[in-house]
């Protein structure tokens, strides 16, 4: 039973846990966190085993209620879905380990239980989006995770309700655009199943309603993905949300939009349609490039660490958009690998910001100094490693994303895009080194300046449950970096859609 049900299990597990948590917590409030953590652990294990299952057995399909598509809803587990669900769940697990203390510190007690229940709903939404093979079902899960996210963002700082409201409005518009796109597609084809749609579109061709559907869907996913210039909700939402929320949505949330974009562009409409018939891929690539530059430049001007990381995320989403828009195998591999890489890097960075907030009370950059580093040496070291990865230093993961993307741009002879990618590394260096310099070089206000005797320092390093996830993620930046060839050749190459296959040496 389990193997055939594999695609559906994870979203359902989270849904179930999300419902279980408020009930269980009536008995014992602390259960809420542990149930959430347990669900994430089981889901990660399941997702990882799914990868192996897919590698062995190929694409798995599950039909809800036994109804065959296109009548019924179908869940599809192909290499891309398996990869994404593994990334989402594993990163969420690590972040949830970190979340226990930050949620206790950030939120009043009565909100803890609903918070974790919402997290479960959000994870259910993410996993559902990744697994589903039905357009409308994707909309449903998209809205599930979005609604949960609005709530999760809103419980943060004083300014978070406003940020959440803005996110709500923009997110709702995005969802509605996507729904409109689905409506147009349904009108032209009569089917809601993605695989079915692909076959039908081949026959239907490039009718106006199909083209409009494509455009609306791209707009919808673009808003969710925060592709420039549809990113307006992101900076405030990431900045004012509580630490656990930012750490959950920054690595994962925008990637769902990217996933949707990849599915729709390459698996439903097909390569020829999006590059020749309606050259949206080009547009997405240019928007991605613009986002890279915009995000990097804006990040340089920020004084608050989380806000800087938020703009940095806009830039990183730009990389993914650029990789998708290049519409060639290497670019797409780079984009998908960057989903993993950026997930790890950003999660680590946001966890560091969380550690700073917890220990120092703030994460304002001008207030960081060598005293911070002396009090929190491991956190600072993790930050430095993640920063070096964002800059693209080998052998960390950031370098490899850029390698594939650079190969993709050169293959397309897009020298401008290549230059954008390279320049962005330098821009990243500027705003990350601002922080690193402060951490390591700015004399601490107060005593023991310039002494490296550890005993005269009051240790204020974050607690183990906070530090361990941070360090695990930091270590993974190098380990996954060195393993990138295994991941790409072993798994990612298999997901490439028809028209974009490649054999790697």
């Amino acid at each position: 039973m389990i193997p055939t049900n594999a695609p559906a299990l994870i979203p359902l597990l989270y849904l179930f846990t999300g419902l279980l948590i408020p009930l269980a917590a009536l008995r014992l409030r602390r259960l809420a966190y542990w149930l959430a953590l347990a669900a994430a652990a089981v889901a990660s294990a399941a997702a990882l085993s799914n990868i192996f299952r897919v590698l062995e057995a190929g694409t798995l399909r599950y039909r809800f209620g036994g109804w065959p598509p296109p009548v019924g809803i179908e869940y599809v587990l192909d290499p891309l879905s398996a990869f994404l669900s593994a990334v989402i769940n594993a990163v969420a697990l690590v972040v949830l380990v970190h979340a226990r203390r930050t949620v206790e510190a950030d939120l009043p007690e009565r909100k803890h239980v609903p918070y974790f229940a919402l997290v479960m709903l959000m994870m259910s939404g993410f996993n559902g989006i990744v697994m589903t093979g039905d357009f409308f079902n994707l909309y449903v899960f998209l809205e599930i995770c979005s609604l949960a996210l609005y709530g999760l963002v809103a419980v943060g700082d004083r300014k978070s309700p406003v940020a959440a409201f803005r996110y709500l409005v923009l997110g709702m518009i995005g969802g509605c655009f996507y729904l409109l796109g689905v409506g147009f597609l349904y009108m032209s084809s009569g089917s809601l199943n993605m695989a079915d749609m692909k076959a039908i579109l081949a026959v239907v061709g490039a009718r106006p309603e199909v083209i409009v559907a494509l455009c609306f869907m791209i707009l919808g996913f673009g808003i969710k993905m925060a592709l420039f210039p549809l990113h307006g909700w992101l900076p405030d939402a990431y900045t004012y949300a509580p630490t656990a929320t930012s750490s959950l949505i920054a690595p994962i949330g925008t990637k769902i939009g990217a996933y949707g974009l990849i599915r729709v562009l390459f698996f439903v409409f097909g390569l020829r349609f999006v590059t020749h018939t309606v050259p949206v891929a080009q547009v997405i690539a240019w928007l991605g490039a613009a986002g890279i530059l915009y995000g990097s430049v804006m990040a340089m001007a920020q004084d608050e660490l989380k806000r800087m990381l938020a703009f940095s995320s806009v830039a990183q989403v730009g990389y993914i958009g650029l990789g998708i828009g290049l519409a060639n195998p290497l670019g797409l591999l780079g984009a998908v690998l960057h989903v993993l890489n950026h997930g790890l890097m950003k999660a680590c960075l946001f966890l560091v910001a969380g550690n700073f907030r917890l220990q120092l009370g703030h994460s304002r950059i001008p207030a960081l100094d060598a005293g911070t580093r002396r009090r929190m040496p491991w956190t600072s070291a993790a930050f430095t490693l993640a920063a070096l990865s964002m800059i693209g230093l080998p052998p960390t993961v950031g370098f490899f994303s850029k390698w594939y993307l650079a190969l993709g741009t050169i293959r397309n002879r897009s020298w401008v895009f290549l230059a954008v990618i390279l320049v962005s590394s330098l821009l990243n260096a500027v705003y990350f080194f601002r922080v690193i310099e402060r951490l390591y070089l700015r004399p601490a206000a107060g005593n023991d300046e310039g002494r490296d005797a550890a005993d005269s320092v009051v240790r204020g390093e974050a607690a183990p449950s906070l530090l361990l996830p941070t360090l695990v993620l930091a270590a993974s930046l190098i380990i996954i970096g060195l393993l990138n060839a295994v991941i790409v050749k072993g798994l990612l190459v298999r997901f490439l859609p028809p028209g974009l296959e490649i054999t790697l040496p």
Partner: protein
Amino acid sequence: MSAPQAVPSLLPLLAVLVSLAAVPLILLSSRRPVLREAWTLAAAAAKFGLVLALLPGALAGRTAAVDLFDVVPGVRLALRADPLGVLFALVASGLWVLTSLYSIGYTRGLKEHKQTRYFAFFAVCLSATVGIAFAANLVTFILFYEILTIATYPLVIHKETAEAVSAGRKYLAFTLSAGVLLIAAAAWSFLLVGDLDFKPGGIFSGLTLAGKTAVPLFLLFLGGVGVKSAIMPLHSWLPTAMVAPTPVSALLHAVAVVKAGVFGLVRVAAFVFGPDLLCRYGLDTILIVLAVTTILAGSLLALRQDNLKRRLAYSTVSHLSYIVLGTALVSGPALVGALLHLAFHATMKITLFFCAGAIYVNLHRENVSELNGTGKVMPWTMAAFALGSLGLCGVPPLNGFLSKWFLGSAAVGTGRPLLAGVLILSGLLNAAYLLPIVQRSFFRRGSGLEGRGEASAWLVAPLVLTAVLSLVLGLFPGTLFRLAGQVAAGLFGS
């Protein structure tokens, strides 16, 4: 000419990793300076020993090879101890032993802060340098090249003054930009050829590469390696980086960073592009023009510097382009000269830097104008300085003469006697900015030197050793000469 056979062996990997292994030990010994220094020296000695162990194989044409996993699809993380790599690694690891001894004296003498960070990052730099030396393909090369960039940053900003931090920023700006160009060049090459292993004669030897691909590609590579090679106008980070402690400057200028740059250039010119391709599209001419400009301009700028270390910095800029020139002449003897100069300049320059540091620690003087009479007070130091200076001018029997001779005769041999003239002119300029220092120190009366003596033995012993080494290598260039010969033979036939 038989192709060198690759012999699987872990030695190159061990040589790279031994100093990395020392890093946690150094970090843990932060409370015990003696232990910390002991780990550094042990790692240095072990590294040099391992590289020496690779020497016989390289000379005999048996390259020790390590093939790890795929670092990107199609390119393995691989190390090869070929003659060129062993030559560079010998220079780097051998001089590190001496620099470590010197560092101990220097940091003790100045009671430097943050010594743990200093020694730890020094070890990482040397790991990266040996990694660069033994890198078997472009991606492995880039990996270690970038690690070197980042690992030297904490050393450049060591003093943590505003000047140091700003120098560090400039250094990073230049080197990271170069790194990015190098990545682009490697990616492009990978798409053209599909295989990035260094091959004598060039990766592209199978293809006919059009000019409009080869020239921009070469320029990208040149930008990538040119910053660390201090080719003008990409050199200005180097004098600014003199704000670092002297052993770091000695490391930057004699051993690791700049020699990694020119080493990279030799790899690019000979093992990526190959002699044919270089000549076909006039790429060698580009290199020659840049090299000549840098040689002369560097020397002229050196004349104007009063700060001793800055003068030596510009001198380095100038001498690095000797190596560039040798590479650009695309002939066996020229390459031998270039590689010999890579090693010989290292010993001579490191001597001069060691002397500068000893003077600073001992007398707290940094400027040439303050060096009157120092010879009386620090005779060993200034004698070594004199030897190093004579070597840089190309005076026999010091090693500098040998490398210059090869370069000069190669210039004549390839039909460019003017370049030999440039070398002679440069020698005269060297004399103009170095010998007056010797003259001041020995033949003028100094002030404020009463009661001062020679610097500590930790400082003087290494610099005397390197000066003597320069002399010995000039008389018995044996091994290095044979290594360089092997490299040239591999490229141009005997």
